[in-house]
């Protein structure tokens, strides 16, 4: 097999090298211009380990009008991802070995990224009975992350049992922290603005109370907990406190919660309707700081495609969620790297190494060293791109960044040694 050379690329923005790849593995970091093989020009570009998303809604099976495994993984590859975790809230719900294997196989067929299905915690996401977590873990899909995302596992006993049960196979429960009674009919962050706009409030405490309960539960039963899409300063405080106490808890933040605030809701444009809701500027600041200091371990997109008609309506009737895969890196660049909150190595931790560790994906999140599996995102930090919804590979168009100019561009993506994206286009 011929080898591949990423010519003159700067790993983590450091000194240029030729990264030589053969048989899906990095085989050499050679002096620039000396690597031997088929050349991919990458002079002045930055190489990072391929991004791993812990939180992707691929919508297949059931909502193929919004996204499919194929279109979603195209979007992922174009965003520099080499692995995505496909959320379980499909139709049928991914609560059996059969469904998770189906999604996993669709990912294999598409061949663009590793598709790691997330298993539902409870049957049908109903929050009543545990799904067959063991069967999913032992299936071909090797599920390690379990989540009822979209819904909160709000029953404390059920949550305790799930946390305990997944210990048997190194799993983790990823909690969508939303106290259901406090958020009945909720439409936006509860604050001065929700009162003024007459939209039912979504109090921060509804998220924070569940996280507080869950970290205590995780500690009590000695289990591993992952908190999905942390969105408030208070949640950050709770997680920081739990980590200080030695609780085995990890957390993710979405790109949109790092850059957008609730002020956008004043337009009543449902493109900004998302769960959890956009919060205040103070929350955004706290989330950035927490991601910088490691209290929050990972950036996860919560990529949530919706067909046009589900957003082209009044606020209350609109679906919650926004696209994220193709803009995640640019938002991270804009909010974390450019302001100096994260170095390139830090960013690699937050977008690749930590998510791979949390999801127990052994072939992902490797440091860029000889012997590592060749999953790479090669980015141009100097480019600036205006987001144009029609230019996205996702089947849906619900990006909140329409018309925004963001820094950074994913130029090449290499998945297990094979280029999936070259010069910003699918290879």
């Amino acid at each position: 097999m011929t080898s591949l050379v990423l010519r003159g690329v700067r790993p983590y923005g450091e000194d240029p090298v030729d990264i030589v790849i053969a048989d899906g593995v990095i085989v050499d970091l050679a002096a620039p211009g000396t690597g031997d093989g088929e050349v991919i020009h990458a002079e002045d570009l930055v190489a990072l380990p391929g991004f791993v998303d812990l939180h992707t809604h691929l919508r297949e099976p059931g909502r193929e009008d919004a996204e499919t495994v194929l279109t979603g993984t195209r979007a992922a590859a174009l965003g520099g991802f080499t692995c995505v975790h496909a959320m379980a809230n499909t139709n049928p719900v991914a609560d059996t070995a059969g469904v998770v294997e189906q999604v996993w196989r669709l990912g294999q067929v598409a061949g663009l990224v590793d598709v790691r299905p997330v298993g539902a915690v409870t049957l049908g996401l109903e929050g009543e009975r545990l799904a067959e977590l063991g069967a999913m873990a032992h299936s071909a899909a090797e599920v390690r992350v379990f989540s009822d995302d979209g819904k909160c596992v709000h029953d404390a006993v059920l949550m305790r049992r799930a946390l305990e049960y997944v210990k048997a196979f190194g799993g983790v429960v990823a909690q969508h922290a939303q106290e259901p009674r406090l958020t009945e009919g909720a439409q936006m962050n509860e604050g001065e603005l929700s009162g003024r706009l007459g939209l039912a409030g979504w109090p921060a405490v509804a998220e924070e109370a569940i996280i507080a309960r869950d970290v205590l539960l995780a500690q009590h039963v000695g289990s591993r907990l992952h908190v999905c899409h942390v969105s408030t300063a208070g949640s950050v405080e709770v997680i920081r406190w739990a980590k200080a106490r030695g609780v085995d808890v990890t957390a993710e933040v979405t790109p949109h919660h790092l850059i957008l605030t609730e002020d956008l809701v004043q337009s009543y444009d449902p493109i900004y309707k998302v769960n959890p809701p956009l919060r205040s500027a103070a929350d955004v600041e706290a989330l950035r700081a927490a991601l910088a200091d490691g209290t929050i371990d990972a950036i996860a997109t919560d990529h949530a495609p919706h067909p046009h008609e589900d957003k082209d309506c009044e606020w209350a009737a609109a679906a919650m969620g926004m696209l994220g895969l193709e803009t995640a890196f640019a938002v991270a660049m804009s909010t974390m790297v450019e302001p100096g909150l994260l170095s390139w190595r830090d960013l690699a931790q937050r977008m690749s190494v930590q998510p791979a560790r949390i999801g127990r994906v052994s072939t992902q999140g490797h440091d860029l060293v000889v012997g590592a599996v060749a999953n790479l995102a090669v980015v141009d930090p100097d480019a600036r791109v205006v987001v144009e919804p029609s230019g996205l590979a996702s089947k849906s168009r619900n990006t909140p960044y329409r018309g925004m100019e963001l820094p950074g561009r994913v130029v090449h993506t290499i998945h297990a040694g094979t280029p999936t994206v070259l010069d910003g286009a699918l290879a």
Partner: protein
Amino acid sequence: MKHLLSAADLSRDEAVLVLDTAAELAAVTDRSVKKLPTLRGRTVVNLFFEDSTRTRISFEVAAKRLSADVINFAAKGSSVSKGESLKDTALTLEAMGADAVVIRHGSSGAPHRLATAGWIGGSVVNAGDGTHEHPTQALLDAFTLRRHLREGSGDLDGLRVAIVGDILHSRVARSNVLLMRTLGAEVTLIAPPTLMPYGVESWPCSVSYDIDTVLPDVDAVMMLRVQAERMHAAYFPSTLEYSRLYGLDVARMSRLPDHAIVMHPGPMNRGMEISADVADSPRAVMVEQVANGVSVRMAVLYLLLGGMKEDI
């Protein structure tokens, strides 16, 4: 002015213009020929996604007195794809050539969406959206206050108004707080803390949980409808306790200064927020509010449609 979506859309001068225009139009209502040719050839659509016969009829009378063609479009009931139906309905209305759409909708921001989503080109008048706003109600309240307490002209500078009841769910309260402030009146909101909106401290008004201490110092008190069902969601323990603590009965009304008036946007829950004898007392101006509603809505329709179409 292209749309009327929020009371906040109006500057002080614009609000006074609406009230002055309404005052002139009210005179027309008093004569035998009540119809004006002003909006002949214009089409006004009443698009009501919620039942509100009172408001719908008020707009209908207003539009007809100005000779506009009126189409009543009761969209309630198409519940399956509620979201689609607002857009599809809007496209239908656009095809019919609606010059103005008067919209009542259960979801906050729906009129805003109708005005800005690019579905229609005409004017949009918010006739009540969810728990957000009801600007023409605030205008008719201001008009009523001005007639009684400011001799029918100018603004409401220095007037003190108490608004009592379910502020949290009230679009009337939100619009009134904004408009009263614009016109110089001082508003005090009175409700149990559970029925106050989150963040109400930052609104341009005062807040009190005690109606009895506020009433002696106001020029008008506006009672809001309180639905008994709210007690099932624990907003208050019982209707009895609510009306004892926040209802307006004759004893409580006697705390008001002699000149003060009692208002209610209707429909009233007699025995809940207002006792029957207060509702029927000479200080209660509810019937007048209804009449003023027509004049104010005529003024709004005239000011939106009575000139050339604004460039978009």
